[in-house]
């Protein structure tokens, strides 16, 4: 009914009202997501009561759907809960931090093998690199190089579990969830933490 169209035309929820809700509800959500701006693009992080569960290059809607399906549908964008994660990532991007000191929630890791691969990767120091074969070997399955590559490709904790430090034998970059430009940026940052890489 055309005369009633005006009823729909009111303004939407004011930003202050939405923010007030998020401030009250943030702690009640099972998963809090927040954007973090990296020098090479945006990443999204997800925090649960156990700790950091996700550092992701996925599209926002895909990330939310995945978190809802695999962790809990009670997902809310609540940036305040990720303040410490953001602070440490910012420091890392600025070249001022070489280690993360964060509680991690490993619940998005799919298999015990993937967990071993990621833990082997987490032990690779800042500025160093290893090969996919090295990681497969550290995970106890030296022949499972391809599977190790898949496990790293599905790393739920990019950057913090530094899968960008894993390269092909011979030094080729291999793959990266955030794209090879991001991988190059991270490796260059770690190669010279005093100068911002271009």
């Amino acid at each position, binding site marked *: 009914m055309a005369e009633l169209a*005006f009823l729909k035309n*009111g303004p939407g929820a004011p930003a202050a009202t939405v923010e*007030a809700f998020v401030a*009250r509800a943030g702690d009640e*959500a099972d998963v809090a997501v927040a954007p973090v701006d990296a020098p090479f693009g945006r990443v999204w992080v997800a925090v649960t009561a156990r700790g950091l569960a996700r550092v992701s290059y996925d599209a926002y809607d895909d990330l939310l759907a995945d978190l809802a399906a695999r962790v809990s549908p*009670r997902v809310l964008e609540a940036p305040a809960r990720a303040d410490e994660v953001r602070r440490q990532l910012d420091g890392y991007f600025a070249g001022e931090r070489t280690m993360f000191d964060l509680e991690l929630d490993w619940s998005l890791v799919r298999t015990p093998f993937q967990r071993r691969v990621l833990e082997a990767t987490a032990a690779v120091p800042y500025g160093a690199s290893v090969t996919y074969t090295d990681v497969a070997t550290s995970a106890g399955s030296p022949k499972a190089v391809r599977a190790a590559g898949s496990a790293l490709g599905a790393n739920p904790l990019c950057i913090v579990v530094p899968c960008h430090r894993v390269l092909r034998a011979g030094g080729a970059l291999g793959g990266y969830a955030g794209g090879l430009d991001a991988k190059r940026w991270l490796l260059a940052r770690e190669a010279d933490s005093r100068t911002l890489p271009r």
Partner: protein
Amino acid sequence: MPVGPPPFQTFFADHRDAVWRLLVATVGPHDADDCFQETWLAALRVWPPAEEENLRGWLFTIARRKAVDEHRSRARRPLAVEAPEPVSDVGGTDPEPALWDDVRRLPEKQRVAVVHRFVADLDYAEIGAVMGTSAEAARRNVHEGVTKLRKTWQSSRS
């Protein structure tokens, strides 16, 4: 395609504006803020709802309950306000305050049905869920409300 309930954040982003408009239309701009937060907190606390629920009907049932609670608590205050304040209080953005007054003067069932139909864009089944009636009764309430508004507006034009 993913099965199961959508992420709460997606549901919130998709419906927060409709909930806001509905609350402004039913409790007025001053109480809408509180009702909005109470509605979404309640929704988050029980999220996800049972699989068979119509999600919008479920959400607006919560909003309706919060609006009614607000109305009751306001009625207990010494300086009770009879009807929701004019919606035009919201930044003066509403170009049709007189039309709103007519909507506000409808009998309650018709007013609630019309507002849910045209402010929140619910279908009759969803309005029935909100008001605890059948879809058919919801349709009738909307129809009677709209007919009354048409008559009012025709007579004011002639």
